[in-house]
C-alpha cells in the first residue's frame, strides 16, 4: 500500500513514521503528479490557513478534490478543516467530506488538552491542539468519537476526519482504521475494474 502525506507544512514526519510502522509505504507529497501512484492520502495537522495558501499557490486544490472523490483520504486537525464541505465563518477548501467544522473551537493553546476518547469500544489517548470540532454531519456519515457533545472523529465513506492528533501518541488504532479503509477501497476499485473488463 502506498500512502502519501501532503508535505507543505505541519506534522508530516510523524504521519510518515506511524504509517511506515504499520507496514505501509509512506511518501511525502508536494506535487499533483505524485498523486496518481497513491492508494490513499493523509492531510496532516499544521496551520490550516498556511497549508491552504500553499495548496492554492501550487494549484493543488482541484487535484485533491478529484483524488478524494475516488480514493481514501485521512485529515487530522488542519487536514479535517481543509477536507470539510463547510467551515464556520470561512470558505471551505477541498470540501468533499460531508461535515460542518468549526475552527479553534476548544479555545487557544492554553486550553489545548489530552484526554481519552472511545472509538469503536476502544479507549485511545487523544491530543487536541487548538483543535476544531465537527459541528454536524451529513447523511450516511458515521460518528466514531465524541468529547462531551462534540464530534471529534467521523467517517464519510472513504474519507476519515479527525479533530485530534493520533500521530502524536504511540497508539496506532486510528491509523489501522484508515489503512483498513484503504485496503477495502483498493479491492473495491479492482473488482469494479474487473467487471468492466
Amino acid at each position, binding site marked *: 500500500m502506498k500512502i502519501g502525506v501532503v*508535505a*507543505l*507544512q*505541519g*506534522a*508530516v*514526519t*510523524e504521519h510518515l513514521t506511524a504509517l511506515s510502522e504499520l507496514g505501509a509505504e509512506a511518501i511525502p507529497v*508536494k506535487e499533483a503528479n505524485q498523486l496518481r501512484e497513491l492508494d490513499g492520502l493523509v492531510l496532516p*495537522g*499544521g*496551520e490550516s*490557513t*498556511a497549508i491552504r*495558501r*500553499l495548496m492554492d*499557490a501550487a494549484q493543488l486544490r482541484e487535484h485533491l478534490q478529484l483524488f478524494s472523490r475516488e480514493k481514501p483520504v485521512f485529515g487530522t*486537525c*488542519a487536514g479535517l478543516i481543509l477536507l470539510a464541505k463547510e467551515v464556520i465563518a470561512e470558505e471551505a477548501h477541498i470540501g468533499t467530506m460531508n461535515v460542518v467544522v468549526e*475552527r*479553534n473551537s476548544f479555545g*487557544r*493553546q*492554553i*486550553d*489545548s*488538552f*489530552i*484526554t*481519552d476518547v472511545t472509538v469503536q469500544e476502544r479507549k485511545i489517548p487523544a*491530543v*487536541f*491542539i*487548538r483543535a476544531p470540532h465537527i459541528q454536524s454531519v451529513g447523511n450516511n456519515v458515521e460518528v466514531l468519537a465524541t468529547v462531551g457533545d462534540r464530534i471529534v472523529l467521523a467517517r464519510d465513506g472513504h474519507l476519515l476526519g479527525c479533530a485530534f*492528533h493520533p500521530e*502524536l*501518541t504511540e497508539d496506532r488504532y486510528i491509523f489501522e482504521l484508515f489503512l483498513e479503509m484503504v485496503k477495502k477501497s483498493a479491492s473495491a476499485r479492482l473488482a469494479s475494474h474487473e467487471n468492466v473488463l
Partner: protein
Amino acid sequence: MIQTGVETVKRGMAQMQKGGVIMDVINAEQAKIAEAAGATAVMALERVPSDIRKAGGVARMADPRIVEEVMNAVSIPVMAKARIGHVVEARILESMGVDYIDESEVLTPADEEYHLLKSTYNVPFVCGCRDLGEAARRIGEGAAMLRTKGEPGTGNIVEAVRHLRQVNAQVHQVVNLPKDELMTMAKNIGAPFDVLLQIQEVGHLPVVNFAAGGIATPADAALMMELGADGVFVGSGIFKSSNPEKFAKAIVQATTYYQDYELIANLSKELGTPMKGLDITSMPFEERMQERGW
C-alpha cells in the same frame, strides 16, 4: 479526564508549526499581512529587533494592548516575548492567553543568572540556543520548542548558520556516542544528563528546533531548512524590506520548497530591497544579543 498544559500538548503545538514561517509583527495590520502570506504564527512585538537595536536602552515585554490587538486580528497562533527570567512578564502573557511565549534574548534580560522554570506554566515556551548545552538546559527547564539564536536584527545569516550547525553537529555526536561517555559529555557542555540520554534514545532533539536571527531573503530561509531547521522565525526581515507582502509570501514558499532552486530563483526576482544588513565582526561585543542568557 482532561489535562491541559502537559508536555505532549506543549511540544505538539510546535510540531504543528513545522515547515512554517513565524513572523514578527508590531500591529494588527502587519499581522493580517503575515497571515495572508501563509505565516504559521506571528510574534507580537512593540518593535522589531533591528529597531530595538537602534533605540537602545532597556527592551521590555510589549504593551499588552498591542498583543491583544494582534490576537484579535488573526486566527493563527500568536506568540509574544518576555524578558529572560522575568516571571511576571511571562505570567502576564500567560494570563492574556497568548499561544506561545518566547523567553527572548532580543529583550534586555531581567535575570542574568536564572532562566524561567518553564515547566511550571500552562503556556508553552520557545527559547534561543547557540549549542546543545544551552538547548538541553532550556529543555531541562521545560522549553517546548527551541530556536537557534543567530544575531537578531542584523539581516546577517552567518550566526544563524553557525548556531544551527553547532547544535546539529552535537546532536549527531550524542547519538553516536558510546553510552559510557555520555555523562562526561553532559559535564563538558553543561547539559542535563537525562536530556542527552533522551536524544540518544530517539535519535534527535525531543523538541522542534527553528532557525532565527538574521534571515532576510527567501534564499536565507531555504538555507536554514537545508541545514536541518524545522522552520524559521523572520524578525525584521519582512517588515523592514521594501515590499513586506511580497517578501512574506516568497519566504513562505521558499521554506516549503527549499530544494526547488528554480522556484526560489523566480521568487527572488525583482523582490525589492531586503532589510539593510549589519556586519557582525564590526559589532561591539556588548551589542550582541546572542550573548544574553547562558
